[in-house]
């Protein structure tokens, strides 16, 4: 005990400095985190009048929310597509670049890969919104190659709007993820490649038995981070359609935003937030467990 106190005293300046980060996260992350649970049990529109309603908000969300099913379906579609884009395309791109022989070409390609991610994301979305207009780039391009019958109001049609949101940003090059994978490829020991070569392994076999397992660590992290960010993401939906037309592209985030900031229903919006958090939390745990198991199998 005495010893601990002594070492605490010795480290007093360290604790003093650590007060700064803890003040920040306590006020702006942990406090809102717990407050979110509390507000979700209230009927509250932001004013002085609040009423404790127990789980009424949750009951309403799960039994009476007409948009819940569609929001969940849409976010799952967008998340699966987004993971394929953010992780799959990045891996593919890094794999191809890594095997190009000229070091100079590789260097130039790496720079070209990262430059597009410097364009503000919003500019990308706004450009695609313009491209999807009836007289926009997409329809003109379709006309140019003789696919006139495909021309339509991409963001204005209930049946194609979600597909259009998935397709926006084609070919979905993700600079940061590609560079992370490329750095991973460089860490694979040369001897392992040579051993594979001596064994007469084809590029496919090398990919499957050497490269994918060696990059499992990066894949695990990128999968988890993409999953977490995609499930709560609604920037793109908000900018492209605001959930429309006729709520066809609604996602949970849009539902939360509208209830909080358009209808002023903070309690109900918080219940959506808490439910989404629980959903993300369970999925992250599952994916961590799954990738851990597969990781153990490989090694």
């Amino acid at each position, binding site marked *: 005990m005495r010893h601990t106190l002594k070492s605490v005293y010795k480290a007093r300046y360290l604790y003093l400095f650590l007060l700064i980060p803890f003040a920040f996260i306590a006020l*702006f992350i942990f406090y809102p985190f717990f*407050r*979110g649970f509390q507000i979700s049990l209230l009927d509250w529109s932001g004013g002085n009048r609040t009423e404790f309603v127990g789980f009424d908000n949750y009951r309403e969300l799960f039994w009476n929310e007409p948009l819940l099913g569609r929001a969940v379906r849409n976010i799952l579609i967008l998340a699966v597509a987004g993971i394929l884009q953010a992780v799959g395309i990045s891996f593919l791109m890094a794999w191809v670049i890594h095997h190009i022989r000229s070091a100079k070409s590789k260097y130039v390609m790496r720079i070209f890969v990262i430059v597009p991610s410097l364009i503000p994301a919003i500019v990308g979305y706004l450009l695609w919104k313009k491209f999807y207009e009836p007289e926009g780039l997409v329809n003109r391009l379709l006309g140019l190659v003789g696919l006139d019958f495909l021309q339509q109001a991409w963001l204005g049609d209930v049946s194609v709007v979600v597909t259009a949101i998935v397709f926006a940003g084609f070919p979905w090059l993700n600079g940061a993820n590609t560079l992370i994978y490329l750095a991973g490829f460089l860490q694979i020991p040369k001897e392992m490649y040579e051993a594979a070569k001596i064994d007469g392994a084809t590029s496919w076999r090398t990919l499957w038995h050497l490269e994918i397992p060696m990059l499992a660590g990066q894949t695990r992290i990128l999968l988890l981070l993409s999953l977490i960010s995609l499930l709560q993401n609604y920037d793109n939906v908000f*900018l492209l359609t605001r959930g429309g037309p006729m709520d066809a592209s609604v996602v949970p985030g849009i539902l939360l935003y509208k209830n909080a900031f358009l209808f002023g229903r903070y309690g109900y919006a918080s219940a959506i*937030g808490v439910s989404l958090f629980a959903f993300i939390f369970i999925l992250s745990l599952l994916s961590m467990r799954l990738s851990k198991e597969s990781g153990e199998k490989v090694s």
Partner: protein
Amino acid sequence: MSMRKTAEIIRYAFVILMLAATFYPILFMLFTSVKSTGSLAINFFLPDFTAVHFENFKTAAPKVLPYIGNSVKVSLLTVAGILFVSAGSAYIFARFTFPGKAILYQLLMATMMIPIVLTFVPSYLLVRDLGLLNSHSALILPGIAVGLAFAMLLLRTFFESIDQGLIEAARIDGAREIRILLQLVLPLTVPMIATVSILSILRTWNDFLWPLVTISRDSLRTLPIGLAFLVDKPGSNQFTVMMAGYTLASIPLVVLFLFAMKPFMDGINAGAIKG
């Protein structure tokens, strides 16, 4: 031999096609920003260098520049805050042992697992109750809090990888802890600091929904919000003018990257994210 060559050609073709499809919208934005409306009607897809029309920029600049200014201010202050707090804390966690170290670190890292959706509404109410709505502090202070953990993770890993012998030698020579930090560790850390800064700036610069709900006064808006509402501004709903506005909005990060490219690439290669 020829099969190896074919494979190489396919690889080049793939990369070039990917890059072409990625860059076309950006180039489209660039060359449309210097087209007149008439020229756009005739030639939609390709650049038109016969009549470079810079007036679009003249119309767009006064509308977009104030937002760029706001975004630069908010991003710089946020990143400065993140760097100061996270570098100091990461160094403490990497170099010293003290009671409660593991728990405190876990607590900080746990903030990365808390999704924004859950804290969005309560954070808004908090900022409102603190009287920070319609001020840049509403963006900067929570921005620092959210960015801390990730920066700390990268920096701590990096500090721990620094050769301890070097530091011991300096200590034996009688250098004080603060001098070791400033003259020995800090110069080695430049690539990692560049990486952390760029990743943090990218996040702050692109943040959309939070500034959308906390800032409603037009003169305080950051770039993403300003751009999203640009259509509503008189004189800028013209397609070519909007493209000029978007182009202006894209310049600052590209310029920043030109200066920070080398250390940033080094930082990423140093294995910022290993998994």
